[in-house]
């Protein structure tokens, strides 16, 4: 039989190429189905975008009010990478049937979470660098990492792969932000009093975040602690 390059309409008019499943080479064990459908994922991405946008804005507000020069300059980079994260989430929204103009439609999961964001942004004066940074780098960004990783694990690995790809990049950078922020905090909190301020601020915000149900509003509020 001569090699047949293209199938014809008859059962004996198949090509001669070997048959493989879409997951054979290399072998791919991912299964269909995840915890979130399109509507649920779209809602979560809107929540993520809301969190990233507000985080970027509050850091922008803080730079001028923070006296430590390396904190100012370090936050500059965190702001940019946070903006890129918000932008990536925004670009995912039209792909999740939210409409072409949905790119900047972030939304909070609930009012309590929106209030939490305002509490996070609360500290203003130059003597409150510890409170500003503890809220972000001890509490909120670790929480986001946890929820983003949860989404990556629990969403449909094949259908929602574009969200997973976005989250992978964002989590990698968020880990760097946390490492930087916590190192800065360790250095700034050189007395027991300052360490206590850091702990108190983190505890207060953790409690408020937990009560709101977190960035997606779905955290089990019976959990003892976050992160």
């Amino acid at each position, binding site marked *: 039989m001569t090699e047949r390059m293209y199938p014809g309409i008859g059962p004996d008019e198949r090509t001669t190429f070997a048959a493989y499943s879409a997951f054979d080479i290399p072998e791919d064990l991912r299964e269909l189905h995840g915890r979130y459908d399109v509507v649920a994922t779209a809602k979560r991405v809107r929540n993520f975008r809301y969190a990233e946008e507000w985080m970027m804005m509050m850091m922008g*507000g803080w730079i001028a*009010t923070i006296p430590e020069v390396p904190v100012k300059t370090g936050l*500059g980079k965190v702001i940019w990478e946070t*903006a890129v994260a918000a932008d990536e989430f925004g670009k995912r929204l039209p792909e999740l049937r939210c409409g072409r103009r949905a790119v900047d439609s972030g939304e909070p999961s609930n009012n309590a979470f929106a209030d939490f964001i305002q509490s996070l942004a609360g500290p203003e004066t130059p003597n409150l660098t510890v409170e500003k940074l503890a809220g972000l780098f001890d509490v909120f960004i670790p929480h986001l990492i946890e929820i983003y990783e949860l989404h990556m694990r629990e969403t449909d690995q094949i259908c929602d792969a574009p969200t997973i790809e976005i989250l992978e990049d964002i989590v990698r950078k968020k880990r760097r932000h946390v490492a930087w922020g916590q190192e800065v905090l360790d250095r700034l909190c050189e007395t027991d009093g300052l360490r206590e301020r850091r702990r108190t601020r983190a505890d207060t915000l953790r409690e408020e975040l937990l009560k709101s149900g977190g960035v997606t509003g779905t955290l089990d509020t019976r959990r003892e602690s976050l992160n």
Partner: protein
Amino acid sequence: MKRFIEHEELARDSRFIRGNNAQATVLASLPDDVDAVVKAIDPMAQLIEEGVRGTAAEPLFEAYGPAFIITVLNEPLDPEAPAAGIRLLFRMHGIFVGELQALEGAARSLWDFPDAPWEFKMNMARQCWDEGRHVQIFEKLLIHLGGEVGMFPENTFLFECACSDDPAMRVAGVNRGLEGLACDVFRDMIRYAQKTGDTVMEQAVDYVLADEITHVRFGSEWVKEFTKDNPDYLERTQNFRREVDKQFNFGGARSDRPDSAIQIAIEDRLEAGFDMDEINEISSLSSAGPKKETLRQAAAILKELHDARKSNQNKEVTQ
């Protein structure tokens, strides 16, 4: 956290002291008349002296008197000139704090205008990263040249005059006024570095200049976008930038006169979205200020007046 802060609220560590912004404002309104310049600056002599006491600017005050700022600003940087080293550091330190204020201005735009379009926020966020790097770069260059952070008083008038509460005017002031000035100054610093063979400084400032052109372009585009369909708003915004540019000419230090300390970087500004009319306008604003010879004569008189006052005071003390 409130929206909009005053320049006095910019947070600094213990190395910094503040300069007096009134001097910069006076500089911007000086006419081309020796007596008028003397009259405007002489009443501030005491204040200026107090402001520099204990800082690296003290020798400049001793050498040039109360008008040292106009003398230092209005003479082109020349590696052969007397006190060239300290004058270079004075300029570098001014750039360093200018970058800090540009970082703070761009960052505040994110918080002060929460309802601005998303692309605007993206541009400002990018600028935060860039200005953060610029602060780092100029701290390194300052040390590279033998200086240190806090060696001169910091003047916050860049932030004060550029940071309007209106978004179009904010970008006109910060991104076109302040950042446009940065383009002029950096082009001059590159020329200086080439003259002294300082390749570290030349390459670093060249990269920074590339960033600044991008920031001016953000400003050029957002002024257009914010004021589109509203010619009256555009006119008010342009007037605001004119005022800022007038301040940033430092009494003629930046101008297109052949002997000016800082030339207007025409090519860079064109690339950044300024049109020729706007550039000509900046030139004419600066040429309305005092000529260099006027400033030289005024500076000499001011120094005499100040020295005479001091020797009188000393006589009274010894009597």
